């Protein structure tokens, strides 16, 4: 009996510890939280999923016509658009640099350069090897034109925000009127998906602080703003989804290649594991252990 008690006590201690640990898995703080992003139902999110090229092309158009007015994508080269899995990949093109869509898109851009004879600064049409030009001559100019908040570069945006493409989609299509009782400053907009803490700006019930935060970007998308070449109706929801898909591709252009390689690697390792296990059984067959 004493032995039983001796054993039972620590067991109960363990149970308490496990229970305590389990209850801790609830979110740590309620106020100051952003709304959980809605799912964009993206084709590329599953382990086998790939990008929908038509969606990437629509997304590029939204970026080009709307976002790129303020947001740079410094890390993107035009040629990347024509790589396998990219929005303008063409299996007939010998290389991304010779892709006719890529060349046409690059040529639309004006790139700052110097005249190779005189050294004078000039503007020339872009080539496939050029990076996307920034809308701002420098960071300070970008901030000054936007009330002091520099519009962030979008090159790796889905990797730089928890929630990834779902977050971008939710944010862009999630603007709502601020709830009554929330004081919104000049040049700021309320968005329930934006990170922040609304407690200091909230006059209502302190237990019902609204989700989200303030963002300096106004709701820029409006229905029919972009004309999609494939006839898709350009609703705010559609445009937000498509541009989120494009930014997701741009943040990690190798994602599809990576996942496909991964399938091969795992299949190889699984077979290798099976063979090694069989060898292990054979080698250890006559050893008691």
């Amino acid at each position, binding site marked *: 009996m004493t032995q039983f008690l001796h054993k039972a006590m620590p067991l109960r201690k363990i149970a308490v510890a496990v229970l305590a640990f389990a209850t801790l898995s609830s979110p740590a703080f309620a106020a100051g939280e952003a709304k959980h992003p809605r799912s964009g139902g993206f084709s590329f999110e599953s382990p086998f999923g790939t990008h929908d090229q038509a969606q990437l092309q629509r997304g590029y158009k939204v970026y080009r016509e709307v976002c790129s007015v303020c947001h740079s994508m410094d890390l993107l080269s035009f040629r990347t658009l024509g790589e396998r899995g990219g929005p303008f990949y063409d299996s007939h093109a010998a290389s991304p640099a010779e892709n006719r869509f890529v060349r046409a898109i690059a040529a639309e851009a004006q790139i700052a350069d110097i005249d190779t004879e005189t050294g004078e600064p000039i503007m020339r049409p872009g080539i496939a090897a050029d990076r996307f030009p920034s809308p701002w001559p420098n960071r300070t100019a970008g901030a000054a034109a936007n009330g002091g908040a520099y519009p962030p570069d979008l090159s790796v945006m889905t990797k730089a925000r928890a929630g990834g493409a779902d977050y971008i989609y939710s944010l862009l299509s999630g603007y709502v009127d601020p709830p009554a009782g929330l004081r919104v400053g000049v040049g700021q907009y309320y968005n329930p998906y934006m990170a922040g803490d609304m407690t200091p700006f909230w006059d209502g019930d302190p237990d019902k602080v609204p989700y989200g935060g303030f963002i300096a970007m106004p709701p820029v998308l409006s229905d029919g703003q972009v004309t999609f070449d494939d006839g898709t109706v350009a609703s705010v929801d559609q445009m937000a989804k498509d541009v989120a898909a494009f930014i997701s591709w741009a943040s990690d252009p190798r994602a599809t290649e990576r996942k496909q390689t991964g399938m091969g690697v795992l299949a190889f390792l699984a077979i290798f594991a099976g063979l090694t296990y069989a060898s292990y059984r054979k*080698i250890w067959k006559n050893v008691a252990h």
Partner: protein
Amino acid sequence: MSGHESTYVPKTGVEKWLDSRLPIVRFGADYLSLPTPKNLNYWYTFGAILSICLVVQIVTGIFLAMHYQPNTEMAFASVERIMRDVNGGWLIRYVHSNGASMFFVAVYIHMLRGLYYGSYKAPREMIWILGCIIFFLMIATAFLGYVLPWGQMSYWGAEVITNLVGAIPLIGEPILIWLRGGPAIDNATLNRFFSLHYLLPFVIFGVVVLHLWALHTAGQNNPVGILIPKDREKKDTVPFHPYYTVKDGFALILFLMMFAVFVFFMPNALGHADNYIPANPLVTPAHIVPEWYMLPFYAILRAIPDKFGGVVAMFAAIGILFVLPWLDTSKVRSMRYRPTMKIFYALFVLNGLLLGWCGAQLPDAAVVPGMPSFTLIDGQLNSYLWLTRLSTLYYFAFFVVVLPLVGLRETPLKIPLSISEPVLKGPDAMSGAVPASAEKKG
């Protein structure tokens, strides 16, 4: 194993010539024929897994260094360039960044295995101490490496950790400036961090060689925890190759499969999204958190109200591991035969996970939201601050109270006289001592 006689016989003329000048082939052959206890379970495969982790990190790191730019203006973009434009660069970079996490998964399991089976006790203290040095070097290397991509967490992590040095009274400030190469974290800091990040893995490699040397001198521990007498060596051991090369190999492949799932399907799951925002000294991130493997130590750092006290506690948390062999008073190595200690051990593992969890939370946040609480000294009782403190207390109590006292007061179970005894008779055999004559036959 200790006193293991070399069985290598050089056959060709070249081998004989070499063997009398540099017996390197003999060294390798003896390593492979090393008599190894035959009852090692899968927890013992992590040593081999760790050596592969180190090689993977060094090889991928060398290739990354060929493309990386240790300059504050270019570092972030150069890492992205590796992943976009360098052939196979995305693979090399993701293997390296996830490899650090895998390295720590394996090292924590390896250390906890050593703790459970008493692998630190005489005559293996040096193996354990060298292992602690490796662990400390790993933390330093991982921290330096995390700064290199020059994202927000890189920068602010470096800010927080180097600031700790500044907490040392009197000499802290000058050392801080010397360490950073200036009054603030800047290009000089990034340059020296890159240099040291490239250096330390080779230092680790050297200490690993010593770790293995000590292992082969003192002999491999085993789950029963008994030393194998000379006369039983034939019965209780098997040559390392092929018996353990194949077992370690199988475990390694399973480990690599888990590694591959992270690298290929969720390469950024273990990192923080903020590190894809280029470093900006003017914008502090909402929450500065280290990588998951440092969280328990970060929690201990924050548990102490005094900054310097926190630094001391954090280093003590690692430092105490060095004296572990002298804190444990029990003569019994394996916790298999220490039922009371086993429970404290389980609590220690859970407590370690809890500390890690606490390290990722805001100290002022309520542990159980909505539960009534009161202020205790400097914080709400129902807050992560106090939970972290309790957890920190158990961490240290385990080493300075539990290990010495339980070792003196517990009654261990009967220990088998040899490895093959429980092996041959099944688990029931452990409880009763077997007569010497039976043992000889067995």
